[in-house]
């Protein structure tokens, strides 16, 4: 019952969120501000994680391929496909759910408990549209680029650590990376990323927007935002994979 209530309240909030902005110049300024805050601000951690993620995948693939019948370039191929299909979109999605989701929920939650949202409403401003819409739009615009950057740095990490540890030669790795490339995989990855971007920003905003109480409750909302965003991401990961790959 509580779940149904929450889902209903979430969709009502989304209906209020997607209203025409009060003033376009203010809106676009806000969107670019959010792109910088939510997107550019997350690049550092995404790059670091992607490099090591690529390195580990490469070494694990090389470790798993023991048969001389399997060509060594398949290490590069498997690293590329693992990064593109799953690790970059989903793992980066989960990392952003933690970093960006908690930040959104605590920002909006603090505004709620300090009556800043009430102040917006009394001024005649649709607070949901003013606060949440720019965050969602910013994430939808920037997250695909972040995931592409993650894929790139994952492959760089795989190349550097694979070659450095001697599990694969530069030629074989580069051959594997280019072997049998399917553009549809990129479409699948970007589609997932767009869904995940919407989930992270909207679910976290929902938890922040309906915060009640004080600083303790803001912290709880922030934790809930990360937990629920992550669960919904994993569910949609399965659903989208089922729909797009099978």
């Amino acid at each position: 019952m509580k779940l149904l209530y929450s889902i209903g309240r979430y969709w009502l909030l989304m209906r209020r969120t997607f209203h025409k902005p009060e003033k376009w110049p203010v809106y676009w300024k806000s969107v670019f501000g959010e792109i910088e805050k939510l997107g550019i601000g997350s690049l550092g951690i995404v790059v670091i994680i992607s490099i090591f993620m690529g390195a580990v995948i490469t070494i694990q693939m090389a470790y798993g391929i023991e048969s001389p019948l399997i060509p060594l370039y398949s290490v590069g191929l498997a690293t590329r496909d693992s990064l593109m299909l799953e690790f970059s979109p989903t793992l980066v999605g989960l990392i952003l759910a933690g970093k960006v989701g908690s930040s959104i929920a605590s920002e909006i939650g603090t505004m709620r408990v300090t009556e800043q949202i009430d102040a917006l409403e009394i001024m005649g401003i649709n607070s949901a549209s003013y606060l949440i819409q720019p965050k969602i739009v910013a994430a939808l615009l920037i997250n695909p680029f972040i995931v592409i950057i993650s894929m790139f740095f994952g492959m760089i990490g795989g190349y550097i650590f694979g070659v450095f540890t001697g599990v694969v030669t530069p030629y074989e790795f580069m051959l594997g990376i280019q072997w049998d490339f399917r553009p549809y995989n990129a479409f699948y990855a970007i589609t997932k990323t767009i869904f995940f971007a919407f989930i992270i920003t909207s679910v976290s905003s929902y938890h922040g927007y309906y915060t009640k109480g004080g600083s303790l409750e803001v912290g709880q909302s922030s934790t809930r935002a990360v937990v629920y965003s992550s669960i919904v991401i994993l569910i949609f990961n399965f659903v989208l994979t089922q729909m797009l790959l099978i």
Partner: protein
Amino acid sequence: MIEIINISKSFGEKQVVKDFSFLMEKGKTNLIIGESGSGKTVTLKCMVGLLEPDSGQVLYDGRDFEHMNFAERKEIRKEIGMLFQGAALFDSMTVEENVMFPLTMFTDMSQKEKLDRVNFCLSRVNLETANKMFPSELSGGMKKRTAIARAISASPKYLFCDEPNSGLDPITSLVIDNLIKEITEEFQITTLVITHDMNSVMEIGDRIAFFYKGEKAWEGTNREILKTDNERVVEFVYASKFLKEFRKNS
């Protein structure tokens, strides 16, 4: 002028406001006073649409707020300035940006015009040098004054203040009270102050409604409140033992 007609509001079984009516005149400082939890803030929230009353009407210069659609309410809200208990300044914006915010959202003024208006409002609340400060750098009194400047920046017709003196010392409270009264008279605004501070009542209360357990128990002026025999009001005004003794002897 604002007219509240028979407003009632319940939360579940608990009736918080019962048939409350009150007439607030233009250019006057109107007060709703009463103990904590007596329904004052709920009434204010019903007036601005943050809560929906179960029954009753709120008329803003004859316009029935309760029966308006979202767009019509929005137009009324643009005419309202509000001072919150905790000031509710946007903490990611400077003082200047906070005061400029309503102008940016609702007017087509140029940047220079907006800045001139902001500087006028800030000088009106004696905060000429705080433009570039953030709310976290301000004292309680400065936050309240910034919130007043923001509330009046878009030239509102109605000003609502929820516990404007909470957390302030008596001297700063007096400054805020006088500022509210001066602004009300100067700009001919209809002002409503929610408070339980007796200094405010005596200083600025042109018209006062006393709330007791969600009902209006008394109505009058700041002069009349000292002379009334209403038991509830006497209990509230002369709350301390010392004042009770003082009243008895005088």
